């Protein structure tokens, strides 16, 4: 069995809002033999859940949520590169699940803020509410 600490490293990197570290820890987990599903569910998603809890407690705010999303992207890109075309549907499905989960944390943003979001570049979570 591969070292479980590697999945915790992935979760911690997401929680620490560190995109490069997330990519590196995902790569390390893949190379150690962990499968994409385990890395996504027990690493990336676990880290994201902790970020979500902090957001809902209002200990962190939108910039931090956006940085976590950057971590998720980088982590999924690593997996995508590793599994190739065959695993692409798996990664796409995970991306969708994570996006829906993150969207559920966001409050209904007021028109004042959505006005500003209209002019924003893409962010998968915010698109849902704006």
């Amino acid at each position, binding site marked *: 069995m591969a070292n479980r600490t590697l999945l915790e490293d992935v979760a911690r990197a997401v929680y620490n809002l560190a995109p490069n570290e997330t990519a590196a820890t995902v790569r390390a987990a893949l190379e150690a033999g962990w499968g994409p599903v385990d890395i996504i569910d027990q690493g990336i998603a676990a880290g994201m859940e902790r970020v979500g809890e902090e957001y809902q407690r209002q200990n*962190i*705010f939108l*910039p931090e949520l956006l*940085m976590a999303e950057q971590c998720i992207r980088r982590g999924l890109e690593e997996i995508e590169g590793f599994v190739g075309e065959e695993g692409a549907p798996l990664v796409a499905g995970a991306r969708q699940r994570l996006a829906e989960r993150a969207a559920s944390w966001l409050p209904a943003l*007021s028109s*004042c*803020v959505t006005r*500003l979001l209209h*002019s*924003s570049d893409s962010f998968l979570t915010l698109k849902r509410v704006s």
Partner: protein
Amino acid sequence: MAEMSPRERFLAALHLREPDRVPACPWLTSDWFMGQYGLDSATWYSSLEAQLRAQVEIYSRFPDMQFFPGFRASYGSTVEASAMGCEIVYPPEGAPQARPVIREIPRDLEKLRVGNPETDGRMPEALALYRALADRLSDYGYEITAGFLHGPMDVASEVRGMTDLLLDLYRAPDAVHQILDAATETCIAWAQAQYKASGGTMLHILVSDDVSSQIGRKHWREFVEPYMKRLFSSMPEGVVGGIHNCTRSQQVIDLYPTVGARLLQFGPDVDPAFAKEKVGSQMCLLGNLAPSGVLKEGTPEQVEEACREVIQKAAPGGGFILSSSGSVARFTPLENLEAMVRACEKYGTYPL
């Protein structure tokens, strides 16, 4: 206490005193007027006649209300960003929108510029509207009482794009400071220009700080506080500077007085009792009926009840103006605005 005029009532509250009763000041903005008069945004924003006719008619019809912000030129939310070089797009319905001009950092930072109100973007057009409105209003016995501008962080979010700006707080903080610096100088010039164009009749200038609802206290202190301080210390002499934040602001609300703001329009996400406790002794509070809630959808009786709750929490001791928070929503019935006045008479007569 002798009955005050709506203006006297408003000024007493603005200066943290107890008026004869709580002033009722619906926040009527362009969107409500466009709905009320069946006008599209292109007509509204470009037509002095349309703005003049609508405001004079509504304000004359309700002499017991001190409308807030009162007579002002409407030009949408992108005027500051346009002066800083953003392209503006005009959706058929709703307000104009800005396209970010700083799309890539550091490449586009050389495009940063401080907007000149007399020459740049939509500012000359907005100033012309102010001057013409000031000129014509005197025929009706009114004057321009309010100025409005988007604060440095809100302007920066249009110049850079909201998502990228928030990410840049981590990725490129130095670039954010550069953008905020230019935005602040633009805001200062714009506040002065509005005041001058109005003929010096403005009582207050409100500065929006909506983006701050989405950032934490640490970021606010680094990226908002110094620029707001600079802006409020440069307000025209005698003008009360205020902050508009129609979303959650609990994490920074106690910092607002420190930047020199003396008026706070706060949103329905903030408990009026909380706002009163945190800043009520230093700032006049203005709010906080939800525009799209009971004020728009409820019966006049329900509106009165909602007003009563806010008045009971925020009005004791004075320094409170009953208003909607973000704006009065399009198609809000006039009967519900009248209900606000009745609620102030019933529940907001001092001493409370």
